[in-house]
């Protein structure tokens, strides 16, 4: 069977890594002819890394000339190119409800929402997404294929040695620049601990990172190095606000670390409060640090949770098993009739309409705000200061007057 996965790039992290792992399984174990299609022009078209060996990588232009059994979009932006490919069936591999990556008012939010209205079959990696899609699109086939774990890299120890003394080993990981990952919030919560601890921060980029109190900041590192760090870790702290399948705690579980986490989407798949992890409240750094203090003091509880984490990990599927479900899902998509297009179009237009209304409210709010600002700008004093600011000599006067202003305002 010929399958095309549309990807934006081949930087092997996060979502793309999952797609490549599935592509490899399909190619190597199930005899699928898999192509990775780059949906946009690449600045750095370099993809000679080991996990891609044996997989065909082509440009969108090249893919347009071919014919596939199933074409699969893997990120909302790649869905725009999906129907440019000639395929018997179209599908979307949904790794998160991606509109949540954007704040209200950002135009991408609408785009990410609209692609869920396309006449495609869905494959998703988390039960909460499958349930949501089933509610949104009851007429569209929806398959569930959870991500596997590479158990040769995240190789669980046969026996877990209790960590009875010394500081609590804590790890915080993620992109600090992504607001919804809560990396800086996690570091801040660790910083409020009373009990002895040692914090390691792992992040591929330092942009926006506030790692005060961290013993070490590492990254980018390989998956194998990350597994090694988890093996030395007692507890992973994750205060994410948006997650899909929520992989990092599961990887930590495999290496015998427990987790303190928010009730983020995805956690319900395998996190059990008091069994393999502790669940903290939203926006509660003090409460989170108290949970960490508890783990630092109560080493029996810590070991119990670590044992629970390891047991959860043992029941989690490998990539080989995940690949079987993906192969089964794609074969079913190819075999069964495609979803009804009219129902999808109706929903798409309704969402476009809702998007227009939303945009109208945003524009109205912005106009109101601009009007209020203009009113304040006309107030005596402020009007004169703003008038000065517009002239070059006025800016000099304002700069010279800054110390006086500071003295008057006491700042």
């Amino acid at each position, binding site marked *: 069977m010929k399958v095309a996965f549309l990807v934006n790039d081949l930087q092997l992290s996060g979502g793309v890594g999952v797609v490549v792992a599935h592509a490899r399984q399909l190619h190597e174990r199930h005899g699928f002819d898999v192509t990775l299609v780059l949906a946009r022009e690449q600045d750095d078209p370099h993809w000679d890394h080991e996990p891609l060996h044996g997989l065909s990588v082509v440009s969108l232009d090249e893919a347009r000339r071919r014919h596939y059994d199933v074409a699969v979009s893997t990120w909302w932006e790649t869905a725009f190119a999906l129907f440019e490919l000639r395929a018997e069936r179209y599908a979307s591999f949904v790794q998160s409800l991606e509109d949540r990556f954007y704040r209200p008012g950002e135009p991408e939010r609408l785009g990410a929402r609209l692609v869920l209205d396309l006449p495609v079959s869905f494959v998703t990696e988390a039960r909460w997404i499958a349930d949501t899609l089933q509610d949104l699109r009851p007429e569209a086939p929806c398959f*569930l294929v959870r991500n596997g774990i590479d158990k040769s890299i995240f190789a669980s120890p046969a026996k877990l040695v209790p960590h009875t003394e010394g500081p609590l080993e804590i790890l915080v990981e993620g992109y600090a620049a992504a607001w919804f990952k809560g990396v800086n919030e996690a570091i801040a919560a660790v910083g409020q601990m009373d009990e002895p601890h040692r914090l390691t921060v792992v992040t591929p980029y330092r942009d926006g990172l506030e790692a005060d109190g961290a013993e070490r900041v590492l990254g980018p590192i390989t998956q194998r190095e990350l597994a090694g760090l988890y093996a030395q870790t007692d507890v992973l702290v994750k205060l994410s606000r948006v997650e899909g399948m929520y992989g990092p705690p599961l990887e930590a579980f495999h290496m015998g670390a427990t987790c303190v986490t928010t009730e983020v989407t995805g956690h319900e798949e395998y996190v059990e409060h008091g069994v393999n992890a502790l669940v903290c409240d939203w926006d509660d750094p003090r409460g989170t640090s108290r949970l960490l203090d508890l783990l630092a003091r109560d080493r029996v509880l810590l070991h119990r949770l670590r044992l629970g984490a390891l047991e959860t990990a043992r029941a989690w599927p490998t990539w080989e*098993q995940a690949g079987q479900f993906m192969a089964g899902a794609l074969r079913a998509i190819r075999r069964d009739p495609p979803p009804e297009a009219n129902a999808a179009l109706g929903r798409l237009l309704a969402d476009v309409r809702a998007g227009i209304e939303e945009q109208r409210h945003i524009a109205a709010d912005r106009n109101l705000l601009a009007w209020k600002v203009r009113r304040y700008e006309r107030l005596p004093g402020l009007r004169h200061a703003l008038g000065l600011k517009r002239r070059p000599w006025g800016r000099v006067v304002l700069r010279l007057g800054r110390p006086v202003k500071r003295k008057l305002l006491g700042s």
Partner: protein
Amino acid sequence: MSASEQTPSPSAARERALLARLVQELAGDQAIVDVASLTGDPPEADALVAALHEHTADGAVIACAGVLEHLADFVAVVEALVAISANRGATVVLAVPNQAYGGQAYADRASAWGEGAVGELRRLLPPDHVLFHEVALRGAALLPEGESVELPTSVEIDPRVTAPVAFVLAFGPRATRLAAQAEVAAADVRAEREHERALTAELDVLRAVAGSAEQQPALAPPNGAQPTETTA
């Protein structure tokens, strides 16, 4: 040993008996195909699919318990079961364990099963399939010494306070006849203890062997028995 005979403990015999009774009731006078008896050793998906096509008569009931978790390519068998059910009007009863609460007992299985995997499996089955949770029961009875008694029992089960030990799924023409039921019998605590003792004994011996192996001098020096230079 066929897959169905590999039981983590003697109490699992009761679970097998319940499933056997369910299948028997569903089949009535129709043929029953026990997939576990068709699996080879080691179980192999392609051979099993061929055997299923060969042995399944129209309208049969296929019992597939203790099989999928032993197969490296279980999806091929699931697809075959779905196709046979559609083409021959067969009813399929599938059972998979919940390994989330099985500790190390399932460490040798080819695939991992739990609520999540069942969620994935369900998407590959016909939409009108039914799912049942199998829960373990604990109880006690009081009876006069040496007397056999038959006691009526009633069990109230709240699924929120327990976790299933296995999942039973069924699809095909007779699947909707599957109903909640329980199988209760006196626990053979002697057999259970004997089973635990056998496991403990095996573990103790293996630990002792591993321990003595560590103390043995290396059969070959670390340099691979190459002659070493000596200094006077």
